């Protein structure tokens, strides 16, 4: 309690500066967590590499404001099959918010190495666990890539589904065009760069679902 000066609002004794500062910082924490609908601050165990972060942030359109209650999300892939830079691989993303939000824009960013023989045919499947073998892959999109470097492959926002587990798995099936000799096969393994700061990532735009939206659809 400060001596002499009075609180301008309630007339009581003003807080000492340190006490006021501590109170304001605590208020700031509560206000931010409430604004982000979080109960506590996230524990960041594996932050993405700074270089990957910087590159990915360049993809978020600067200056575009997310629509009201909208969010833009960048999710980096973890590669679940053994090799780290094969062409066909399983990309795993941890996206727990996808279930509770409406997805209206989705792009998969891939970095193709300069060893690209000519045209690369890419099929992107969503792998859903727990279904009968033949239904475990749902084709999301097909793309052809003819140049190395970063590529933003559009995914149908209606096709990509959140999973109960919060884990989304995309199976990348890619084949070079027919005119490549088998010699390229050896190089096939160097087509996609999925390590380090060239990790593939998903760029999503989501919006909080209006309460009861699901019910109207069911009715």
């Amino acid at each position: 309690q400060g001596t002499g000066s009075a609180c301008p609002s309630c007339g009581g004794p003003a807080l000492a500066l340190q006490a006021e500062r501590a109170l304001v910082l605590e208020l700031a924490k509560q206000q931010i967590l409430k604004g982000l609908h979080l109960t506590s601050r996230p524990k960041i165990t594996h932050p993405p590499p700074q270089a990957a972060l910087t590159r990915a942030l360049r993809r978020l359109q600067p200056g575009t404001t997310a629509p009201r209650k909208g969010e833009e999300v960048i999710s980096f892939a973890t590669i679940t099959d053994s090799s780290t830079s094969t062409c066909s691989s399983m990309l795993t993303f941890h996206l727990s918010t996808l279930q509770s939000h409406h997805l209206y824009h989705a792009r998969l960013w891939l970095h193709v190495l300069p060893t690209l023989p000519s045209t690369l045919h890419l099929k992107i499947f969503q792998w859903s666990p727990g279904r009968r073998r033949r239904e475990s892959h749902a084709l999301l999109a097909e793309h052809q890539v003819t140049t190395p470097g970063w590529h933003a492959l559009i995914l149908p926002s209606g096709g990509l589904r959140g999973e109960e587990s919060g884990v989304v798995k995309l199976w990348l099936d890619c084949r070079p065009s027919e005119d490549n000799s088998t010699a390229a096969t050896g190089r096939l393994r160097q087509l996609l760069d999925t390590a380090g700061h060239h990790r593939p990532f998903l760029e999503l735009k989501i919006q909080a679902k209006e309460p009861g939206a699901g019910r109207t659809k069911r009715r």
Partner: protein
Amino acid sequence: TPTCEPETPLCCRRDYYVDFQELGWRDWILQPEGYQLNYCSGQCPPHLAGSPGIAASFHSAVFNLLKANNPWPAGTSCCVPTARRPLSLLYLDHNGNVVKTDVPDMVVEACGCS
């Protein structure tokens, strides 16, 4: 609304810049580096009740005088935010995803008497 000076007893906006480094949150809040946690404080005597801020229009000034002549004000009037703006945040969520969102009504821009 004026920002509060130490000797301003009347309703005003108190500016407070909070640096996320000071909260120990720079590891998960990527942008911005901090924000204005402004808040309203000060007294609202009866003749200021309902005024949007000290720079009231002529109408509300007259209206205030009328109220001031009424010896029994209806109720107490409080110094509250009258204008707020959103804060755009870029942060890492618990899965390590980068999220960009606009948190509505985060920054108090003006205060006035209720």
